């Protein structure tokens, strides 16, 4: 996937900058590049859960490394989104143990309810569906991750409806 320019000026808020400085200070002198993965997570938390070229260039300047060192890392790891995603990114595990406990049923139910396919974002910008490999929740399958949380045992339509409704009301509360 090609990275996209956001066209926006990227700069951490003072609070995020404090957090960034604290992260950078964890490593021995001269080893500040170790902060790269945590800082890219911080960028996603601050700027809509994806990495634009501008934001990656910003991190390169912050760590005094070449932009390419950021791009190669950003595209290697599956948690970094190279395109904008919806308000809620639903990452469904489809690896063996989840698959034998109904991961494909969970995926098709979500597709039908949200009227989108995996990889797409719903028209209201609320949900994006993504397939991911094993999330270490094999005993609590089928499951998906949304932000901070794992939602496990999603083995019935009622539970899936409840989850989607909870997320929708969370969105309206925060607006």
């Amino acid at each position, binding site marked *: 996937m090609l990275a996209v320019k956001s066209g926006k000026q990227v700069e951490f808020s003072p609070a995020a900058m404090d957090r960034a400085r604290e992260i950078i200070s*964890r*490593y*021995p002198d001269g*080893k500040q*590049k*170790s*902060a*790269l*993965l*945590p800082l*890219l*997570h911080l960028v996603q938390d601050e700027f809509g859960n994806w990495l634009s070229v501008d934001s990656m260039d910003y991190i390169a300047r912050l*760590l005094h490394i070449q932009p390419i*060192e950021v791009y*190669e*890392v950003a595209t*290697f*790891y*599956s*948690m*970094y989104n190279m395109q904008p995603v919806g308000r809620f990114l639903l990452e469904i595990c*489809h*690896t*063996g*143990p989840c*698959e*034998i*406990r109904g991961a494909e049923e969970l995926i098709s139910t979500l597709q039908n309810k949200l009227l989108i396919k995996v990889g797409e974002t719903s028209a209201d910008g609320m949900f994006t569906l993504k397939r*991911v*490999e*094993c*999330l*270490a*929740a*094999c*005993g*609590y*399958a089928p499951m998906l*991750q949304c*932000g*901070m*949380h794992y939602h496990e045992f999603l083995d019935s339509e009622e539970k899936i409806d409840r989850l989607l409704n909870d997320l929708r009301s969370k969105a309206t509360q925060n607006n």
Partner: protein
Amino acid sequence: MSKKILLDKINIEGIKSFDVYRANGGYASVEKALKMAPNDVIEEVKKSGLRGRGGAGFPTGMKWSFLDKKSGRPKYLVCNADESEPGTFKDRYLMEFIPHLLIEGMIVSSFALEANLSFIYVRGEFRWIIKILEQAIAEAKRAGFLGKNILGTGYDLELVVQTGAGAYICGEETALLESLEGKRGLPRIKPPFPAVVGLYGMPTVVNNVESIAVVPWIVLNSGEEYAKVGTAKSAGTKLISACGNINKPGVYEIELGLPVEEFIFSEEYCGGIANGKRMKAVVAGGSSVPILPTELILKTAAGENRLMSYESLSDGGFATGTMLGSGGFIVYDEDQCIVRNTWNFARFYHHESCGQCSPCREGTGWMERILHSIENGHGKMSDIDLLWDVQRKIEGNTICPLGDAAAWPVASAIRHFREEFEWHVMEPKECMNRNYGLREKSIMSIA
């Protein structure tokens, strides 16, 4: 009830917090160890017979004694909390419900290794666990168990929680170190081993969460006491994360040497097969280890009861045995399709291959495509032999063991379930209906 070493305090109300953990004997091993010589702590761990719980089962004390302390360079301890092997979800359980046990283990182990900066590399998806660990570290620091001059002994230690970002390969120890240095997770060629050239080029020990978490018990109770638990070659207890078509999926601490049959069918553990179905197969130690049909997981080829131990599970080699691995225990009932599961795992390894070695990069892709075509009714009989050939050419020909890990599930599935692959080629419709030709002998109902 069998012996509990890791989970004996898990049900104490509030054990997540420092105060409750401390009031129940927590951090006593730090007080004891810091009065010992670091190398004496290593000796205790050696005597315990503890083998690494991350999958490879390498003796922990021996690994520690390889650490280059003589050159006087900074030494690092890195805890592997990447937990991404399909079927494995045990480290998560420890870190979430008794986080101070890992912190305590990290302090004692870092002291033994004479490290002053140590890392816990946690897979990025475990976002809430990262918070739990950071809070536990802050609490331990306030109480004087971390930071400068711990308990007035002059020993300094900082503990950093590092976040991964979604890559199974970063569980491989040298890829993990690359990732911790802010790079792509590309495994390094060994030797040199991390004990000599590790993080930032310095001597480094990488250990699994569970390996580190048993160290406090060993220090308090002695290596000899630990060695008395379990079997002669498999000392101690092991966390097993059980999943698949069983009644009670979850994380269990077992004494090594427990019969496999008891683990699967007793109420204390898995509680038998769900929905009254019969058992078909088991992957006993995470997706990378060979799958075994029911008759071979319950009994060895020689007819002895198979036990949950390193030596019993590997009895018979890969012809009829498997491995304890990470303790990710996946049970398949009679409705599950071995071809589909093998394809699923092949897709996983293809997705997760870092791409450095052509046998792994290309071979995993080939296996995925061939299996996908068989699974979807487009396979030929010759594809089964081709599949066998491809996996043979990956095994042993790569930089890191991910190549082997990708080959073994395919090899074992063909070895033990060849008829099922043939059935899929001949009866493509049946295959797509998930209704398969089952060998009666591989199904046992245990009433």
